[in-house]
């Protein structure tokens, strides 16, 4: 009796976490522009992970590029104008 209960609890727990994982993977798919419009049953989990990695890398590159361009705001010898520009952007 106890062994039956523990077996069903174990299979129940693993069933839930499989569903959880499928759900989480499809949520990820919705975030990735490359694959979000495809049907989730047509995109493998491995493909979703792969595209996720590519997407994160491209977002990191965008952050790098924007950081580089924004860092020029720090360059101005007239610190007042750089600060003024930043403050202006906050107020608008």
């Amino acid at each position, binding site marked *: 009796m106890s062994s039956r209960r523990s077996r069903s609890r174990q299979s129940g727990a693993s069933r839930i*976490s499989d569903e*959880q*994982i499928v759900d*989480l*993977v499809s*949520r*990820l798919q*919705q*975030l*990735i*522009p490359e694959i979000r419009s495809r049907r989730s049953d047509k995109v493998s989990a*491995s493909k979703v*992970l*792969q595209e*996720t*990695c590519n*997407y*994160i*890398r491209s*977002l*990191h590159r*965008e*952050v*790098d590029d*924007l*950081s*580089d*361009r*924004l*860092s*020029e*705001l*720090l*360059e101005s010898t007239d*610190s007042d104008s*750089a*600060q003024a*520009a*930043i*403050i*202006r*952007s*906050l107020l*608008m």
Partner: protein
Amino acid sequence: MTMNILPPNSSAIKTRFAVKFIQAMKRLSKRRGMGDRYKRYRATRAAACVSMASAVGPEWAWSRAVLRKIKRRRLLRQFRVSRKRRLIERTTNPRQNLGFGQEEDLRGLVPGGKGMDYCSLLSETAHYITCLQAQVQVMADILHRSSP
């Protein structure tokens, strides 16, 4: 740059991030030793990533990992720990993964990813992506507004 669908309270996080990031940039603009272009770029990028992690707060493992790393980096810089020792510290950290390529790659890309179970990794990744998207949007916005 792609505009993406963000969760409903994304404007709150974008505002919190924008305020912190601009405050950090103001502090940086007053700092000496910013003549080096590469240093300025590194400092700006660090300010952006820390500001976003700080805006998110300790609720997520990835943001905690970012804030821990910055704290550690500042302490190490204070005590001038050698680069060699820092490299050794990094490579001896235990890894947890099933050995599939993509999962391992993902763990390397998400802050704190190496110590997470698979389920957490997936949900942390989703949140991390939405925050990166918000960060990019706000940074681009600030950039466009600050150019004459």
